[in-house]
């Protein structure tokens, strides 16, 4: 079974070649078939989606103008607030939570006439690398249902891989878009911190979180970015147009970057599985063959990225998640003896193991007497890593490395070993700490037929060029056209 990319579908819908209703029905037909196995969605909105699709078809028939994503079925990770349905963050504590407002990125999708298919599964509050930490359901990798889709945006990447939507939004705090994109064989971009509004994205690590596209192709990624990027007065950390104008990501997408200089960090890559390393090396060679220069760059502080990340992200999380207390909304314990028990029991019942672990870690790191040794030191490391990238980008346009050290691992394989799980993010975390954009593009399969991703990192606000670099590779290869067999089974 095959289906077009989001951009192709959009173009067909706009010309009237394909109806959005037809495309949306097809998506829901695939959902009916594959979703019981994949489990990508926490909620779906078939009726509302078809209503929206027919509205778009009607407007097109009448010759009215429609948005950039006219009629394209799109999924949203369930940690972005929507006025429709629930916003659960895959947590029992918010299982029935209905948000009173739309996240800015969601509002932008709606304004672009996207058809919202549903909201996808994730590791609870986006904390995890396998989507196994979801408090509400299990998601399988469409390429091998005994394996994890990666995480935390595993629902979004599995849905895109299995054709259960044409594109999706994910969020990335330490690799949560790129790592599952790599494990599911799709494209995933973490934009520069501040490029996409965080308003309405339920916060995990506020200084690291970024919403980004999960797509079938680099072109789709550029299309979604042109919809969701931009300054938002509701997000003080979003960047204004004067400081860094949003580029036209589609306009020059097919123009190859001339005299491309690619930085690599061979010593850092050594920790990845051989098959992953080989696939990444082959991809870099392909760039070399088409005229790019490959040079080694020195990134002396990358080794400390994971340690710094798990201090900063958990510290922020411990504070961000303090509001889930059973007082104002969300799960509240039955018959508490006093208000302290409203807090302790509601939180004990509502949060899963990994969330509790990270809240504890973060609380500890911020405690008086430990602040300087942990949080402050982590911030210093973060600055050093930023500096590493700034220096590296003086000699290269981008840096390439693996996304994940392994291909998709088995469900349950790492769930009881948090440290092993945390190492899944070894290649992705640095981009979040430095605030720079990074993309994962499919670059091959291992012997077991599991997808491998190539990660390309670029200077802050370099999305336009980054997408062009990724597109150069995509045009030479067919990896992104491969579909998992799940929908045919």
């Amino acid at each position, binding site marked *: 079974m095959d289906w077009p990319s989001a951009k192709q579908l959009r173009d067909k819908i706009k010309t009237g070649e394909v109806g959005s209703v037809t495309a949306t029905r097809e998506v829901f037909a695939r959902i009916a078939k594959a979703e019981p196995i994949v489990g990508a969605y926490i909620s779906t909105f078939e009726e509302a989606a078809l209503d929206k699709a027919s509205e778009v078809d009607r407007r097109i028939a009448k010759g009215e103008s429609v948005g950039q994503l006219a009629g394209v079925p799109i999924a949203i990770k369930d940690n972005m607030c929507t006025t429709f349905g629930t*916003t659960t963050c895959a947590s029992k504590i918010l299982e029935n939570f209905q948000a009173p407002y739309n996240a800015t990125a969601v509002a932008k999708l709606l304004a672009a006439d996207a058809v919202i298919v549903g909201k996808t599964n994730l590791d609870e509050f986006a904390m995890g690398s396998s989507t196994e930490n979801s408090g509400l359901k299990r998601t399988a990798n469409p390429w091998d249902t005994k394996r994890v889709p990666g995480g935390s945006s595993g629902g979004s990447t599995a849905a895109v891989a299995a054709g259960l939507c044409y594109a999706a939004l994910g969020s990335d705090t330490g690799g949560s878009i790129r790592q599952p994109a790599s494990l599911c064989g799709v494209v995933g971009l973490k934009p520069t911190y501040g490029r996409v509004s965080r308003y309405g994205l339920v916060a995990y690590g506020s200084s690291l979180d970024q919403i980004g596209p999960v797509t079938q192709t680099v072109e789709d990624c550029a299309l979604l970015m042109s919809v969701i990027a931009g300054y938002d007065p509701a997000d003080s*950390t979003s960047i204004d147009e004067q400081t860094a104008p949003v580029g036209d990501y589609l306009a020059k997408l097919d123009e190859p970057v001339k005299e491309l200089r690619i930085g690599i960090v061979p010593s850092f890559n050594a920790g990845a599985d051989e098959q992953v390393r080989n696939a990444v090396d082959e991809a870099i060679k392909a760039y070399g063959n088409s005229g790019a220069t490959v040079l080694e760059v020195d990134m002396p502080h990358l080794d400390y990225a994971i340690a710094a990340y798990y201090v900063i992200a958990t510290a922020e999380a411990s504070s961000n998640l303090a509001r889930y207390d059973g007082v104002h909304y969300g799960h509240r314990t039955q018959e508490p003896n006093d208000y302290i028990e409203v807090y302790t029991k509601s939180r004990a019942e509502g949060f899963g193991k990994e969330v509790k672990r990270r809240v504890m870690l973060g609380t500890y790191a911020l405690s008086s007497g430990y602040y300087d040794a942990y949080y402050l030191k982590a911030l210093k490391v973060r600055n050093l890593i930023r500096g590493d990238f700034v220096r590296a980008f003086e000699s290269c346009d981008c840096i390439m490395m693996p996304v994940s050290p392994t291909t998709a691992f088995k469900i349950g394989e790492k769930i009881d070993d948090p440290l092993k799980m945390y190492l899944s993010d070894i290649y992705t975390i640095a981009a979040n700490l430095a605030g720079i954009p990074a993309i994962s593009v499919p670059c091959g399969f291992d012997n077991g037929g599991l997808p491998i991703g190539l990660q390309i990192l670029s200077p802050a606000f370099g999305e336009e060029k980054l997408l062009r670099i990724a597109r150069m590779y995509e045009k030479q290869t067919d990896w992104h056209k491969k579909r998992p067999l799940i929908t045919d089974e």
Partner: protein
Amino acid sequence: MGKVDYKVLVGLEIHVQLCTRTKMFCSCALAFGEEPNSRVCPVCLGMPGVLPVMNGQAVEFAALAALALNCQIAGFTKWDRKSYYYPDLPKNYQISQYDLPLAINGHIEIPTQAGSLKKIRIRRAHLEEDAGKNLHTAGNFSQVDLNRAGTPLLEIVTEPDMSSAAEVRALAEELQRIVRYLGVSEADMQKGHMRFEPNVNLVITKDGKQYKTPIVEVKNLNSFRALEKSIEYEIGRQLDEFLEMGVVMEMGNKSTRGWDDAKEVTVLQREKEEAHDYRYFPDPDLVPVQVGEQWLNEIKSRLCEMPSKRRIRYVKEYGLSDYDAGVLTAERATADFFEAAVNAGGEPKRVCNLLTQVGLKLANARACSIAELGPDAEDVAELAKITEAGEISATAANVILEEMVKTGKGPRALAEQLNLIQKSDAGELEGIISEVLQNNPQAVEDFKSGGKKSSKARGFLLGQVMQKTKGRANPGVAAEILDKKLT
């Protein structure tokens, strides 16, 4: 028992609610006494996914107040999260400022009873958001009203430089005048716009040795009176506690006591200072504030003469009593109006009397400022001038001012219309006075008898003259004629 002497040390932690148009980090309007939870939005409710956006006006107001308190404004300031769990705090952290406050190292000058000024040092002033309110009126449950949540507060911390309850009250009142002068707060204590938490202790000298009593923080003070009374009470209580039980300051024996307004006592709330760990860290949702010179200069240009200085100047420059100067300078609008009238030629004491005896009363009744009553400063100056010239009596001037407010007419027109121009014509007055003397032979006799009775009788006769002329006799001229006739 040997000689006991003691010194009082009081420092204040003050929260001033700024009267910005909207809350500190969202666009909800500030409100008092509205339906619970009617002035809220996802941001001040602490909903998932929301982000704060700094209210620039709050920073301006805070900087203005801090400058008036002679503080240094930080070139770089940032926002921190202060974590603690309480139902009226929706995010379970408060956005505040920790190690880099907006302002430091200031002082406030307070009027002392001796009529001079005393400097009280200010350690720091920073901005933060207020919490909501817990209501305990629904039986088994408590309810939370978040209308107030997110209201901008300026927290001011003084050094322990106040040495009496009266000084504390003087500071509180002066601060109220200052923030009202600047228009940055309504500073209504009953509405919780100003909240004072004094830290009180004593340094006692007994038999040549010094002892310090444990610091007590007093809470729940809703009026200037409560503030003053509570400190008076604490001074006595701490002295007794020391003399009777020898209690002195030790590590960790700082306590918190609540003021009971009905019994006029402080009641122990928390024995030991709890080891609070607020886990402060910079709020990643907000960007730090860089204070530019141009911006700061613009704020500085909004500063004005502070009330205590103005009060002293009024005594010196206009010869007013300290009391009158205090009344006139209590509010900026009144003082500005007074000075405008004086600058328009009104004699200061006359203008002062008109404003304090009539103007303020009318303004209070109408809940407005003197400037909003209607007559402008020139009209009041004119009224003062014709009174000063003897054309109308001081009593008539008061009547005219009241009519000016009611009718909007000018002073001279009203004086004529109401027939209040004084009779200074000696011939006419002579006739009236003769008549009065004829009709009151007893009084005339009393006058002539001399002594105590004499001055009383003279007053009575003058009163009769005024009554006959309906107050229009020029009292100076009338007295002169009367005295001539009686001797």
